[in-house]
Each structure stands twice: as C-alpha cells, then as structure tokens.
C-alpha cells in the first residue's frame, strides 16, 4: 500500500465520540459547559463546540493529547482567515466533499472588484454598494464579504494609492490582485496590518510573492490556470518556503473550458477530502468575473447574467471564494440565496412544530390564518405577519414538512388535516368568529374545509407578503 492509499483509507473512517473521549482529561469538570466529558466529545464530533473550550486539556500535561485531537479534527481543507477584526472571513475549513456527509462550514465568500484606475467617485460608490448589500431571508441577513482591488495600471504608486483609499473606506477584507511583485508590495504597504489575500503566486513570480506573504503575514493565492500539476507543484514549493496559508486558483473559464473548470474544482476537492492529498487541501478560488474577458460587443446585462450562472455552478462545486464584477442586486441575489441554501446544515429538520402561534396581542376578534409546518414556509409567513405588527393567530398544520402547493398536490395538506388542527389547537375557545383565512395556493380545498370544519373560509393571497394588506382590506370578524 502506498502512503497515499494508507492516508485515503484513514480519511474515510468515521470519527466517533469515543475516539475523542479517550483523549480528553475525563474530569467531568463541566468547565466547558457540558454535563460531562462524553457529552463534550459528542459535540466535538458534531463540530458544535471547539476542543479549545476544554480548559484542563490546555494544561501542559495534556499537550500530547491536545496535539493528537487537533490532528484528528483537522479538516481536509484548511481554514484560511483573510482580514482582521470583526469582518475577517474564514475560507475553506471543509470537512466533507458532499454536504449530506456532514455539513459545509464557511459559506463561499463573495468579493466585488475595484481597480486602481477608477475615479474616486466610482471606487467609493462600488465599495459603498458592496457594503450596503443586505437582504433579509428567513432570519438571516445576506451580505457580501470582500473587496478585490485589481491593479489595471501596473503602476506601484497608483496601486498603493488605491489600496489606501479602500482601507480608509471599508473594513471588509481585501484581495490584492496583480502578478507583479513590485506592484503587490506597494499595495501591501498601504494595508500592512489588514492581512489581505494576495493574488497571486504563479510559475513565474512565486518566489517574490512568497517573500511578500511571509513579510506581511498574509495568505497567498496560488494560480495555475487549467494546470493542476503546476498548481500542486507550486503549493508544495510554497509550503516548503514557509507559506502555510494558501488558496488555490485553478482558473475559471466561462465558455470553452467550462467543463475543465468544473473538473478542476471537483478533482481538487475530491483529492483533498477523499484522497487525503494535502497539496490540494486548501480553499478554492473561483473568478466568475473572468467571463467579462470575452465580452466583445455584448450588453452588460448579458455579462452579469453569464457571470451569475458561473458563480452558481461554482458555489455548488466547491468554490470557497468568488470574485465578481457585476454588482447589481438582481444578479447577485440569486447567488447570495443559493450560497445560504447550500451552506444550511442538512442535519437541521425540515419541519417546525405544528400548533397554534400567536402574533402581537390577538383577541377574540383577531384573524385566524393557517400555514404548513414546512420550515421555510412557516418562517416566511411568520416574518411577514411579524413585520407588519398585525395581531393574528396562525395555525401551523402538520404537513410532514410540505409547502402549501406541494402539500395540496401531494395530499399532505388536506381539508381533514386543517379541520383537525382547528379542533386540536383550541382556537374555537379563543375567538368568537368562525372564519379562517387560507393560503391562496390552497384554494382548491376551500370548499372541503368549510364542509369539514364548519368554519367559513376566506381565500387569502397566494403570497404571504400580501397578508398584512389583505387583513386590513378584507378582514372583518
């Protein structure tokens, strides 16, 4: 068996709480906040707590066990931190190739580019737009993460001035983009403490870039477009040189070479997660904005559309950081949501508890609505009612986690279930009226609900965003 095969075998075994427990101090001291060491070990395996929370373990006599634990728990894709302070981003840190194997950590960071030849006005407006990007989505705030500063001038002084302006205006972490080490150094001098991601070391400049990365203590992107042999050779060389925090860029190709792009990302991630290949075990960088290189006479909207398509595929296929040029809300929002979806913990249940929920201070004349117990449906409806400050009762019907439309189609949401829920929740003792507002998408079963429950049905809007207006216009107890 070769060394690589041995590692591969080790890499696919399941880590059990017992493996962790054996190495803990077994004091059951509760300092970590858990009842005992076994409970702590279980949480470690589930990556819900950090091993450093075990204070006794940090003592000198446990140094060996601590080291072993750290090694066992080390993700196959290294976690690389870019930036300083609150807004620093963590890239990589992936434990698995497929999200159903565990869960993905550290959502793909989205960076928007600026250049050192933009007017001050343009530069500042792009930074402002990037910082202000914000979308409320089922209890999360979707944001953008980084600014990529490109040196299109190739002039050190211009780059330095641009980076200086950027760090004065934003605390978002930076990616400094140039293949010229002299230009790169000028940029780093303007942000000496910002720990930017330096882009990039190539076959031609790696030594100079490695020196800069060491000098400024910043992570370094290794770039070898569509050449994985060169990429791992560079990664091996830079590690030997002493640069530990690397990010890999195998190139992003929007048109010819799209298949190569997905293949390279997939092979690198598989080699790291399944094959124990440490030279591939770093965060991956995608550059959807490379689509703009072939722009030609095509309208900007088409380029933004294409760039968004590329970003979506790379979010699914293992990119840990993406550089985007299009900064329009319409083109970024689908990917901001996709990233949130793909990085949601798949261990989280699909359904919420059925039953009666109260919003505001409802009384005997307040409207009664129902929705399904599919988590996303429930949170969407709940946030729409909440944000409008409407007083209302919401019956959450057990639909085995189906949404309204698929629940009606798949008979998970039936008139019987609605009628039962009306009885079981005791809503009949809370309100004087007998009227229920049902989702517009459940209009098909409105007649049956009236028959079975004896309540009068009002078919409400098809989308819950219109509930507040509907209640104002149409509700009378």
């Amino acid at each position, binding site marked *: 068996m070769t*060394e*690589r095969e041995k*590692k591969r075998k*080790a890499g*696919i075994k*399941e880590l059990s709480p017992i*493996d962790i427990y054996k190495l803990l101090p077994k004091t059951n001291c509760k300092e970590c906040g858990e009842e005992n060491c076994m409970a702590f070990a279980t949480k470690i*395996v589930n990556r819900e707590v950090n091993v450093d929370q075990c204070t006794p373990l940090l003592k000198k006599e446990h140094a060996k066990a601590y080291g072993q634990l750290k*090694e*066992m*728990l080390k993700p196959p894709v290294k976690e690389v931190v870019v930036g300083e302070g609150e807004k620093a981003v963590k890239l990589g840190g992936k434990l698995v190739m*497929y*999200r*159903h*194997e565990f869960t993905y950590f550290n959502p793909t960071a989205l960076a928007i580019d600026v250049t050192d030849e933009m007017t001050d006005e343009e530069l500042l407006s792009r930074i402002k737009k990037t910082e202000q990007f914000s*979308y409320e989505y089922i209890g999360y705030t979707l944001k953008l993460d980084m600014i990529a500063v*490109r040196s*299109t001038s190739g002039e050190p002084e211009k780059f330095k001035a641009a980076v200086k302006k950027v760090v004065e205006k934003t605390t978002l972490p930076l990616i400094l*983009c140039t293949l010229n080490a002299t230009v790169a150094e000028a940029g780093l001098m303007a942000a000496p403490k910002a720990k930017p991601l330096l*882009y990039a070391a190539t076959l031609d400049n790696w030594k100079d870039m*490695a020196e800069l990365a060491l000098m400024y203590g910043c992570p370094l992107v290794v770039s070898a*477009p569509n050449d*994985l*042999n060169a*990429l791992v050779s560079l990664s091996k*060389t830079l*590690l*030997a*040189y*002493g640069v530990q925090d690397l990010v890999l860029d195998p*190139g*992003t190709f929007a*048109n*010819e*070479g799209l*298949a*190569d792009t*997905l*293949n390279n990302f*997939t*092979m690198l991630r*598989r*080699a790291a997660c*399944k094959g124990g290949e440490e030279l591939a075990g770093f965060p991956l960088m995608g550059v959807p904005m490379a689509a*703009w*290189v072939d722009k030609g006479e095509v309208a*900007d*909207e088409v380029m933004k*559309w294409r760039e968004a398509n590329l970003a*979506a595929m790379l979010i*699914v296929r293992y990119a840990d950081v993406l550089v985007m*040029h299009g900064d329009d809300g319409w083109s970024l*929002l*689908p990917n901001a949501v*996709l990233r949130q*979806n793909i990085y949601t913990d*798949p261990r989280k249940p*699909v359904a919420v508890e059925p039953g009666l929920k109260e919003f505001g201070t409802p009384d005997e004349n307040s409207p009664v609505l129902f929705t399904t117990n599919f988590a996303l449906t429930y949170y969407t409806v709940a946030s729409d009612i909440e944000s409008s400050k409407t007083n209302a009762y919401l019956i959450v019907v057990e639909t085995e986690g189906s949404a309204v439309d*698929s629940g009606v189609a798949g008979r998970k949401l039936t008139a019987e279930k609605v009628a039962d829920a009306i009885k079981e929740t005791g809503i009949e003792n809370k309100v004087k009226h007998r009227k229920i507002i049902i989702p517009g998408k459940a209009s098909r079963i409105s007649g049956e609900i009236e028959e079975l429950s004896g309540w009068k049905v009002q078919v409400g809007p098809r989308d819950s965003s*219109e509930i507040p207006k509907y209640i104002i216009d149409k509700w009378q107890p």
Partner: protein
Amino acid sequence: MADKKKKDEDGGINFSPDLLDLLAKFQEVELEDFELEVADLELWLESGALPRQLVPQLRAAPGVRGKPAELLKTQFMPPIETYPGKIVEVKLGATKGEGGSRGRSVVIGGETSPAFYTFERPVVHPPVVTLDVFDMALPLSKAVKMHVKEVIGDPAAWAKLAVEKFGADMVTVHLISIDPLLKDATPKDAVKTVEEILQAVDVPLVIGGCGDPVKDTAVFTEITETFAGERFLISSLTQDMDVERCAKFVKKNGHVALSFTPMDLNLARELNRRLYDHLGKEDIIMDLTTAALGYGLDYAFTNMERARLAGLMGDPELAHPMSSGTTNAWAAREAWLKMSPEWEPRELRGPLWEVTTALTLLLAGVDLFMMMHPAAVKTLKEVTGKLVSGKKADASKFADWIYLKP
C-alpha cells in the same frame, strides 16, 4: 424597460423582451464528441462518513532545509473512480419505425459517473429540456405570459412555439382542465388535446395530469391506450393513485412512468418497487420533488445528489434518470415580486431565479428539466452544450481578468 414594470394585478411578473435578444447574442456552441482516458482504479468512494486524518502532516518544515530555490515539481493524481452501478437508460418518444409517430426519440440516463465528472467519463446523454404547455388559460406570471399570450388556450400552437421558437427538446402537456375542481374535462377531451399536439409537433411528449389521483388514473389509462406505442412520459404516478392499474396500462402500451415522491428517498424506493411488479427498469424516471431556490432547494439538491450517488454505488432502486419540475422556481417570491429598486429589474431576476435553480440541480444529476421561461431554457441548453463540447480552456488568456478595463 421602466414602463414595463407596472404592477400586475395577479402579482405576476413582467419581462423585458430585450433580454431574449440580448441572450441571443450568446455565442453559438458546437457539439463535438470527445473521449477521456479512464484509468481502472479501485473503488473507494464512501458517503456518510466524516473523514478523520490520523496520519501526521508530511509538510516540509520551513527553515529546516532552507527555502527552495527551484520549483519542487510534483504530479497531481486525478482522483478517478469506478462505480458498481449504472443509471438506467430510458428512451422517450417513438418514431414511426419504432411504433410511434415522433420525428425523433430522446434517450436520457446511462451515466456511470456523477454529473459532469467528465475527468472520469464523458457525458453519456446530455440533459434534456421539456417546456410547459397548458391546455387552458390559467394565471401565469407575466414574464412567461408575454412570450406565449398569442397561444394561450391553443395548446397545439403553444407546443409549436415551444419547439420551433424556444428550442424545446420535448413538450409537457399539462391537462389541468381535467381537474374536477376546474373544468372537469373528460378523458375523451384530454385525448383530443393530445391528438392535436401530436399533429402540431414531432418531439416526444410528457403527459401531465391534474393532481387528482382518481381523475388522473382515468385519464392516463385512456391516453396510454389511445396512443399506444408513442412512448409518452406519464407525469406522474404517485403513492396514492391506483399505481398497479396505471403501471399496467403504461407497460401494455409502451409508455414510460414518472415516479413522483415528496422529497424522501425511502418513499422513492418504495414506489419504484411497486412499479417493478409491472414495469421494466427502463420504463421508469424519478421525480424526487423540486423546491425553489430559497424555498427548500437545499433539500432538493441534496436529495437528488444522494439519489444519484446511491444509484452509482449500486442501489438499483435509485438508479433511474431524474426529472425536475424546475418551473417550481417561480414559487419563490423573489422570482416575481416587485421589490425595492436595488433588486430590480425583476424581468431579469425572475428568469435568473429559474436558471440558478436549474444549474444547481444540473450538477446534482438531473436528466430531464421541466421548465417555463424561454430565456432560462436557452441558458440551460447553452451551458450543457459547453459542458459536453469538450472544448479546452485557453489558459493563456485567463489572467487577463486582472487587467480588464470594462
């Protein structure tokens, strides 16, 4: 574009006709055959396990031997695997020579690697798109309506438009008028609609029911019998239907069944097992449920990715081609809702929502996309065209993005 953004009374969407023109400027992609050398390596892929790393790092300690002066050359070993399973090939539509009347048939499935792992094996059959056609007027999002308004209520003309103008590989006839709660049209009426569409286009058809298990059974039996040999995809067979009766009619008349289950692989296996009593493996496609981007796409994606990997790992009950009702993307409010100015225009946001949903599921392994918006269809076909073309990247141009002055 601004004057087209008026609020639609049914909360639907608008769509600028410009986009289709803009998208038409996408460069044409030629399809070429290509092959990959596939090394015969041992199988080691396992899912469901959390990897651990017991072997210490072999990284060279910095400073021990000094900094390297030259590149330390090494090789990347492509992690190529073989899989015991193979996704079943399913043929849709039958030509005259094959006992039907279609100009061509379509084959999907046949994969022996995960979706687009072309470093392992080339794509066997590229994914196929079938466009929605409805047999009666219904509330449609404006983005779609503006492209089809001339043909609403005329399903034959609608089908023709889908094939000739929008490039659909197939057409889905949604027989919603048979719904007892809508028009309650008879099985004979449905047969007539299908007959008209068969005359209008020569692509394979998907026959969609109304969702009422009893009525769908009645209509499906009538249609499968009347059009014996056409190899329709019957959409869909669900757990609460008379599965046995439907499956028998599908088999006897040479059609294909779409096995639909609500996002649960155990239910999918169970329904497939019931179908095996009557149908061959090559007569079944699975629909594991598609949820919209932002509204459960994560569940749909993972469910499909797991199903595909399980099929390749040798689970025969999941080794069927997958179909996705990608049109469900429009259930997301962000696809059609008028939002504050920073998220506009929704004329672009809407179809992009459908494409993003489609591309995500493309990479999970979907073989058949049921779609709605022409721009989304066009984009999906272009992307799959690029992925199977085998054209190589021009690596020398990549770094240009750094210096780009848009």
